[in-house]
């Protein structure tokens, strides 16, 4: 089986609000897949459908080769989940909850005591504290340790670093790297782009309940414009050129964003005007994100 998760044209509405509107998502076995989108885009709804907590209104969803709704308990023995908003039983200690979740995953998925201990130390968690005394970050750590210490094939992580400090975030990234080397599949929902940039093999961007774009980061950059900053000897006109956006000329300094097809022509005109200095770079994921999620801004840029 080559795909851990296959979602086609998935639909889900709650009353009149449409949460998912024909979402497609494929996560290959063994990859770290980032699921990026702003709040309310449908990330958590997708994960909850994959967990069989919500039924789907339309479309298909396969998880580890099974039906996430019908085969829920059987499939859950092979996955571990970290919810976005971790709530824990207040009267239980963190250590008890970690053990409980491992035992709940099934009799055979015994937790590796050594690994659990190592993770608890890595995340600097006090397992003897009652859950009601934990901060948001510490609750997150409990769920993370429970998931990472398991021998699950698939990890579903819903914004797992939302409450972690930068130090713990780094520890988390190391852990995900380890998971990748062990051949586990990770679906990581996030709105933190640097996290996806650092960890993900492939990325799916979700907007308004649909996949806006999916692919490796290299492929996505291929689809995007090149950012050009130049200092020129003389004036230049880029008027009448297709595929050039966000042109900003200040004296002899020029900034613009150029589609790949237009790059050669633009560079030709720049060299004709005389180049003093030139920087061309791929866009950061942040810029990419802004393009997908703030259409007004893209329109405004194009107009200029």
């Amino acid at each position, binding site marked *: 089986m080559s795909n851990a998760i296959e979602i086609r044209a998935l639909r889900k509405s709650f009353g009149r609000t449409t949460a998912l509107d024909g979402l497609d998502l494929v996560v290959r076995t063994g990859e770290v897949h980032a699921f990026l989108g702003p709040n309310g885009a449908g990330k958590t709804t997708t994960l*909850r459908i994959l*967990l*069989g*907590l*919500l*039924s789907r209104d339309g479309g298909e969803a396969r998880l580890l080769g099974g039906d996430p709704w019908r085969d*829920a*308990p*059987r499939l*859950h*023995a092979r*996955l571990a*989940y970290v*919810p976005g*908003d*971790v*709530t*824990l*039983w*207040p*009267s*239980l*200690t963190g*250590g*008890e*909850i*970690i*053990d*409980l*979740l491992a*035992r*709940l*995953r*099934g009799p055979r*998925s015994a937790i590796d005591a050594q690994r659990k201990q190592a993770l608890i130390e890595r995340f600097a968690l*006090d*397992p*003897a*504290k*009652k859950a*009601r*005394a934990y901060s948001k970050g510490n609750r997150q750590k409990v*769920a993370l340790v429970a998931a990472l210490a398991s021998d699950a094939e698939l990890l*579903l992580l819903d914004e797992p670093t939302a409450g972690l400090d930068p130090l713990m975030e780094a520890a988390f990234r190391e852990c995900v790297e380890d998971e990748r080397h062990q051949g586990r599949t990770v679906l990581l929902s996030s709105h933190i782009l640097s996290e996806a940039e650092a960890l993900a093999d492939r990325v799916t961007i979700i907007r308004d309940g649909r996949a806006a774009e999916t692919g490796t980061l290299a492929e996505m950059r291929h689809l995007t414009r090149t950012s050009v900053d130049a200092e020129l000897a003389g004036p230049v006109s880029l008027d009448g050129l297709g595929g050039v956006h966000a042109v900003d000329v200040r004296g002899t300094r020029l900034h613009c964003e150029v589609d790949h097809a237009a790059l050669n022509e633009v560079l030709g005109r720049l060299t004709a005007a005389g180049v003093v200095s030139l920087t061309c770079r791929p866009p950061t994921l942040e810029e990419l994100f802004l393009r997908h999620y703030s259409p007004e801004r893209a329109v405004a840029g194009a107009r200029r």
Partner: protein
Amino acid sequence: MTVSARAEPGPALGAAGRPGARRAGRGLAGTWPLTRLAFRRDRIMLPAWVYLITVAVTTTAYGFAKLYPTAASRAQLVISGGGNPALRFLYGRLNGSSIGALTAWRYGVWAAIFGALMTVFIVIRHTRGDEEAGRLELVGSAAVGRQAALTAGLLAAVTANAAIAALLCITLPVSGLPASGSAALALAIGASGLAFTGIAAVAAQLTSGARSARGIAFGVLGAAYVLRAIGDSAGPAGPSWLSWSSPLGWVELTRPFAGQRWWVLALPVAVLAAGVGAAFVLAARRDHGAGLLPDRPGPAAASGWLRGPFGLAWRLQRGMLGGWAAGAAGIFAASGAAAKGIGSLLGGSTQLKHEFTRLGGQAGITNAYLAALMLLAGLAAAGYATSAVLRLRAEETGGLAEPLLATAASRVRWGLSHLAVAVFGAAALLAVAGLAAGLGYGLRTGSAGPELARMLGAALAQLPASLVMAGIAVALVGLLPGAAVAGAWTALGVVVVIDLFGQALQLSHWVLDISPFTHAPRLPGGAVSAAALLWLGLAALAFAAVGLAGLRRRDIG
């Protein structure tokens, strides 16, 4: 007590002088908006408590006037009731034979208990409850002093207790009782609530969790009840002074309608002052979110018991069940002990006798009384089972079903886990109630062995009917999750009304038959229909099965 909280920089405990006064002014900033917020949030709960307590006391006064209209009938009640140590244990001392004195006896202490429950809920909810939930952090970041929330919670509780006292001052004289006695009873009940306001205010400072803070306050309430009960039921040679050590005892020691001792009212007010003063000092010394009692660390690894959904459900609910069982043991032992001589107690009122034989479903007054007790035990078990099943919904809305159902635990196993606690708990509570009543009655009549067995059977015969209510709760959680909590409690309320008042209201058989308890045997003494028990069991099973099927089908969360 270990004071582990670090004193914050600045004047704290000792500096009641100059800087303290200025600080106190700042510490109270924002109290008024918070108090209004408290009233806004309690706009249903608070009037409901006030109404229920006022109505309970007033209707008791009205009822005594109707049931025991003559001085002679009351005199007999006083001899048998006031002389019965079990009834003194349950209700308190009987000061005189007027209708007012009887009202104060029957509902003085108990109104104070309900008032204390109300007070503890209000105070903890607006102080430690909000602090634990993190709401006070948000509020505290606004221009709000650190004592403002505590003050607002206290104001809400004091207002509620003042409202009860004021209403009773009006309603009791209207129902025909002398004004000064009425005022004494009303003020005694209200003042007792003030004492528990002070106690709850201190409890809210001690622990970091609202549940344990409520636990401490309820523990004090329980101790107050027991001290009073022992003091009241002790003979002249016994430790009757114990009643003086209890805020609940002060209600009867005010002697409403029996030559009022007004100065006793100063005792609860002093407790309020001391408690509030201590709470303010403690609150100023501790960190936000911290308690004065250290959080005890728990085990770093789960024991073998915590293995699956069932172990978890038991772990989450065992404390609550323990509390119910302890309460049932005390109440039913005393009520069982009161059964001896119940005939002569009721002798003065044919109407009350009629009431008991109706509830108990038989003619022999002692058996009728015991059977009525077992009906109450059945209703209590149904109440417990309903709350245990509704834990499913609380877990779901609290986001705790999600991590559980993301594991290999199926929805049905999850549903069954809490249902199992409900079934076991209802059976255990009925067994405790039956054994306690049997023990109480048996020890007084000198036949504890046979009475234990007889009453255990009588109590357990109510189990199928109780489980029907649990089944209805499961069905609602499975099919109508949004309406489950309100629906299940409404169903139980309807059943309670039908069982306790249905015949008196002369409802038709169709209506009476709605309640499962109409079909349960009236034991001891009544006839047992195996078919009826079987049908009740099947109904419970059917409701539960429908609910679990619905749980499998619907969205979670």
